[in-house]
């Protein structure tokens, strides 16, 4: 969906949001250890991504949605939104990682694994948040609903991600991290399949 790219100011807004959050955390905590770094990093990414995702359906007005509806197939719409959001979240995670590295020392020991982790994380977050945002956009109190609906669903993904990144940070020596990666891919796959199957039902309005 190239249309989203037009709203560049929104992206800049989110990126600025990440940087300022990291800075606030930096000012309020001072020096931190790698385990805390891990937790803070994922909390910042989680909240930044929920802020970024809210706009994917909720902040669009009905007329434009009707226009998209006539223009494209619903599956194409959800897929393009998910793909766009994956890119956005990946960028966002890299940026927050960079910002955290700037203010703290980088505790990352295995760069490749960490990169894979944040990529899989952006895929999982993007699928869940995009789909939940589609549900929540139909209601009146949508931003509250968005948080209520998406947080419990995203917790298993978040837990697995934290384990993987703890591995990448060298906090734990787990040789079975491949199993975690497969779990994550499986969860992402299930959620993606469901989102594609169920989205056409949400769209009709």
């Amino acid at each position, binding site marked *: 969906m190239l249309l989203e790219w037009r709203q560049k100011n929104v992206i800049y807004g989110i990126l600025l949001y990440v940087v300022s959050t990291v800075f606030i955390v930096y000012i309020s905590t001072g020096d931190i250890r790698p385990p805390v770094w891990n937790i803070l990093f994922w909390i910042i990414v989680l909240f930044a991504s929920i802020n970024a995702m809210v706009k994917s359906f909720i902040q669009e007005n009905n007329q434009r949605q009707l226009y998209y509806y006539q223009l494209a197939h619903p599956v194409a719409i959800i897929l393009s939104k998910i793909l766009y959001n994956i890119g956005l979240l990946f960028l966002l995670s890299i940026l927050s990682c960079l910002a955290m590295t700037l203010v703290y020392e980088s505790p990352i020991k295995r760069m490749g694994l960490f990169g894979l982790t944040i990529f899989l994380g952006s895929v999982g977050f993007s699928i869940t948040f995009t*789909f939940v945002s589609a*549900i929540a956009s*139909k*209601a*009146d*109190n949508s931003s509250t*609903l968005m948080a*209520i*609906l998406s*947080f*419990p*669903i995203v*917790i*298993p993904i978040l*837990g*697995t991600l934290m*384990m993987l990144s703890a591995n990448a940070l060298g906090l734990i020596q787990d040789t079975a991290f491949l*199993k*975690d990666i497969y*779990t994550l891919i*499986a*969860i992402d796959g*299930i*959620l993606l399949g*469901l*989102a594609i199957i*169920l989205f056409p*039902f*949400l769209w*009709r*309005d």
Partner: protein
Amino acid sequence: MKENWWKIIGIGLMLFSLIFGMLTPLKPGLPSVFPFNGKAGNQLTLSIQGYNTHFDEVKDQRVWLKLGDYTLGASKLEATSSNLLKATFNTPDILPSKDSVVVFTLISDNEIDGASVMPSAIFVKQANIDSLGAAQIWPQNSVDNLHQRAGITFPYRNVLGETIRNLYYHVSLWFAMFLILAVSVFYSIRYLHKENMVDDHRADAMVSVGVVFGLLGCATGSIWAKHTWGTWWTTDVKLNMTAIFMLIYLAYFVLRGSFQDEIKRARLASVYNIFAFASIIPLLFVIPRLVDSLHPGNGGNPGFGGEDLDNTMRMAFYPAIIGMTLIGLWMADLRFRLSVLADKLLDRM
């Protein structure tokens, strides 16, 4: 009456499971022994605590210390009450093992209670290690002619004790809850397929019963945890995942509450119900198996099976699952009829 047969079966099975599960006595067992350590070569006098035992009524009471094939019978036995027995052992200077501290299993047998075993009952320390010499002194395979306790009993397990009965209610609640939620997903799919309002009402009723069963499952599990782990709630992964899973389903009700339009509500609730059910499968069945957990059946811990779940327990456990599911479906049916009637009333007004 004809179409109500399944409700009667449900109640009957549940009643049977309650009565049978609660009234059947536990097999006699040995909860504790004091002192739990000693020195080789000394005379060991153990106070053995029994549970459901009849130490003072029997004449042929026998007690052994067992290590592999080597067994040492008690030289003197004195029953102070039906549940307390003093046993004296004359241990040789050397033990049939290469370790300096050796862990023995305690076995008790008599004609009324049958044989009971207490694994890792007593630690015995030896000053000189001579396992080959000890192998000639120690008697082998002297445990024979063990008795069977007459009548139906449930197995006795240390730590679990009487709470072993909770298996029939705690575990079957979760089974029933999962089945009921699965049926509700079936109705949600049918709603999206046929757009019939009735299916949505059914799915809603099932989810509410499922959540009630989930809460009851947490409560029974909590009681069990208090007894066995010593706390109502721990940060165990299975428990946390259960809490998250309850949050997901409570969000379902929030979602339903935030729509005025009936059709919109039905459609979104159905979509969310399917999505939520799919996301609880990794929550309850995949993740707890990957990480360490105290809960049976996870993280390398065995579930109930083998010796812990014998056929007498199955006689109470399986009816409880079926009965619980049928009663849950009945509860959902009542709720469903209530919401249909409320709809009719609204239409008339």
